């Protein structure tokens, strides 16, 4: 390589992200290229937005909205007003008062349609979010062809899936094969019932809401088992066997984790759990860090997300229990998986992150937006994990549940029970009592997580991963033996 002729240096194709920056410039450069008129219009809109916000703030501080039907921070008031109006309707149907029937059914339908349409909307936008985020984690661009920024990609996918033929494998049990995609949708929808979206905005504010959530979410295992069994396929059977084993194991840590929540808050009602956190200005995530970890990790096993997605481990058993499903039936399984991820995010938010409250800010921002943001944050963590972690083996996963999580969870419940009884008897300010418990719990968790792993004989050389050694001589078995003697 002597002298080089003057040529234009060939631009090496960069990553899609780098290419985008090269083509369009950085955000700052794009802003600099914006015409002056656009900046003026933007400024007018910005100032108008601020003024509108100040007006809203004035009304909110004034207290004029509180409890009124047009208080959009809590749609429960409007429904309550509607119910009152409906109750005044005259007439009878089948010996029952028409007003009472309407007052029961109309709000129920409105709430049901509200939750379902929220979920449907999320399923569409969620798959786009997941694919775009995964692409960002993996230095790709992700879907960007259908519609602006690829936003219509989920619609295109859904259309494609609906057009595809649904194949039924030979030897499959037709009836049982048709049922699971429908069955699996039911618990995924029902579990949203008792979650409070704002103070008066729970669809089904059960006094045993927590029990209801735990039992409903564990129902989906039946559909999974049916799907695997009826497919007449070894991959599907393996996948559903794994799912059942995993669900049975991980129900216990989940229940124990939620038991400690109940012990602290003294209620099974989800809105009461949120209210307790709001009253004490304390998220249970701080008070019960181990319960949070257990619940979150076990949930990844329950809903088949990485690192516990062994039920549909792609590299091993293709798609697990829904290997034989095609078309929209497979699409339903995928949609439920996505919806369950958001559901788990919402449950974590409700139990551990203060639900719809945000330290008084729920006076200003609608509670359902706060809950939505927290649930989406949980979903983001799931995507993050999916992009980062490899998968466990089934025996490792079982060991983790039975040898690690369950004993520690029981110890955690014991500790929380003692703390709860102390809190009930100790006549000190709440900040001192719970401040002490937070410190004690975090310290004990940090200690126990490590110590118990060592106690059950787990010692991984993570700090110093084994490195290859360099051979000085080349040779066969003799050289290998001498190398081994050295090492």
């Amino acid at each position, binding site marked *: 390589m002597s002298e080089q002729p003057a040529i234009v240096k060939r631009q090496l194709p960069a990553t899609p992200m780098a290419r985008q920056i090269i083509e369009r410039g950085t955000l700052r450069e794009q802003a600099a290229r914006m015409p002056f008129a656009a900046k003026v219009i933007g400024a007018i809109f910005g100032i108008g937005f601020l003024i509108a916000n100040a007006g809203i703030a004035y009304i909110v501080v004034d207290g004029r909205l509180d409890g009124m039907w047009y208080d959009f921070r809590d749609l429960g008031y409007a429904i309550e007003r509607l119910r009152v109006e409906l109750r005044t309707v005259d007439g009878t149907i089948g010996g029952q008062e028409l007003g009472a029937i309407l007052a029961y059914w109309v709000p129920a339908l409105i709430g049901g349609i509200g939750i379902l349409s929220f979920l449907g909307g999320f399923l569409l936008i969620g798959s786009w979010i997941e694919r775009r985020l995964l692409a960002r984690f993996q*230095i790709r661009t992700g879907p960007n062809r259908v519609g602006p920024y690829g936003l219509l990609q989920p619609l295109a996918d859904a259309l494609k899936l609906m057009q595809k033929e649904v194949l039924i494998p030979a030897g499959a049990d037709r009836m049982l094969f048709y049922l699971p995609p429908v069955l699996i949708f039911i618990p995924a929808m029902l579990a949203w019932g008792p979650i409070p979206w704002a103070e008066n905005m729970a669809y089904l504010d059960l006094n045993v809401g927590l029990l209801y959530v735990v039992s409903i979410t564990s129902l989906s295992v039946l559909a999974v088992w049916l799907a695997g069994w009826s497919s007449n396929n070894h991959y599907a059977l393996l996948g559903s066997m794994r799912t059942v084993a995993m669900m049975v194991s991980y129900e216990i840590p989940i229940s124990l984790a939620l038991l400690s929540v109940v012990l602290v808050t003294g209620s099974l009602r989800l809105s009461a759990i949120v209210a307790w956190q709001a009253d004490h200005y304390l998220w249970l995530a701080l008070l019960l860090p181990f319960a949070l970890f257990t619940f979150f990790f076990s949930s990844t096993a329950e809903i088949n997300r*990485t690192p516990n997605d062994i039920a549909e481990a792609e590299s091993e058993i*293709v798609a697990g229990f829904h290997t034989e499903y095609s078309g929209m039936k497979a699409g339903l399984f995928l949609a439920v998986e996505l919806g369950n991820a958001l559901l788990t995010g919402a449950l974590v938010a409700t139990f551990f992150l203060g639900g719809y409250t945000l330290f008084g800010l729920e006076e200003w921002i609608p509670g359902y937006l706060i809950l939505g943001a927290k649930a989406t944050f949980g979903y983001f963590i799931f995507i993050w994990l999916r992009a980062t972690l*490899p998968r466990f083996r089934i025996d490792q996963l079982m060991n983790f549940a039975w040898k690690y999580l369950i004993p520690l969870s029981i110890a955690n419940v014991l500790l929380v029970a003692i703390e709860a009884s102390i809190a009930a008897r100790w006549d000190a300010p709440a900040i001192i009592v719970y401040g002490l418990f937070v410190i004690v719990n975090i310290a004990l968790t940090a200690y126990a997580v490590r110590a118990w792993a060592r106690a059950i004989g787990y010692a991984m050389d993570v700090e110093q991963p084994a490195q290859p050694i360099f051979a000085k001589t080349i040779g066969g078995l003799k050289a290998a033996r001498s190398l081994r003697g050295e090492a």
Partner: protein
Amino acid sequence: MTTASEPYVLNIGPQHPSTHGVFRIRVVMDGEQIQDLDMIVGYLHRSMEKLAEERTYTQNIPFTDRADYLAAMSGNLGLCLAVERLADVEVPERASYLRVIFAELQRIASHAMANGTLVSDAGAWQTPLLYMFREREKILDLFEMTCGARLTTNYMRIGGVAFEPPPEFWPALRELVDELPQRIDEYAQMVQGNEIFIARTRNVGIISPEDAINGSLVGPALRGSGVPWDLRKAEPYCVYDRMDFEVPVGTIGDVYDRYMVRLEETRQSTRIIRQAMEAIPEGPHKTDIPLALRPEPGEIYGRVEGPRGETGFYLVSDGSPAPYRFHIRAPSLINLSLLREMARGAALSDAVVTLGSLDIVVGEIDR
């Protein structure tokens, strides 16, 4: 009541996400445990060795691209070295250096693919694979710049290489070599501190050095078991004897060791490329040979250390322009033959990871 389990047969492949090609494993399983397995190959058979007997030696070079399609340069090199020894063709020094540079670039690209797919097999959702593809892409760009092709390069010729690299090749190569070490460190950090990855790969798919030698394993699979055998050191070809590099060797012989050996080999390859870049002399890049080269009747076995191990070419000449017999010793096929020993008694998930760590290319197995 007693419960008895009954073994059943699971067909992994020919279409399966982790068989790395069209290839089938018939596994007899007891629950999640593998009792026995059979490997069925031949779905990608293209009868290359027979076809080669009708073509001249130079016309046979493209077959080596398509045998191990992830390491076309190494295959080209192996065949050219064998023919050159058979026909006594001198190779200019510059061509030898160019061959070393391209063979080592190919090794990095191939190992990036191997390690990336291994981590994907362990369940990481393709993130490490795509990061490793970033540098593989740059290497393939360099190939494209030089010979117009990215995968089936057909670059080496008997007596040299086909083309002189264009002037813009050298700065691009230098840029790549400068950034490669930190990229490799990045991959290493991404994966090797991960407890789940270590738990999935440590003590999985173990093969002892004795068994490895008896089964004639080659390449990173052999070195992962702790046998320091590398043809670039043991039987230097081209200008490897002038290069300063180390041979990394594993300790246990498990999946993790094979992964680490590959990772370290990419670092060593970067070193070799850097040295070759500095030392490359001026001069012609190929010797002119007759179009229909007629070697003296005789036979030859030429071998190189490809990314997957010893890639050998056995040629028999009867004095005509076409070889009388053309045989490829494919490292993947021979490495694969030990999968049964490694995976028997293990879980299905372990077998998949073990298969990933052997880094097979089905094009080479079936030929």
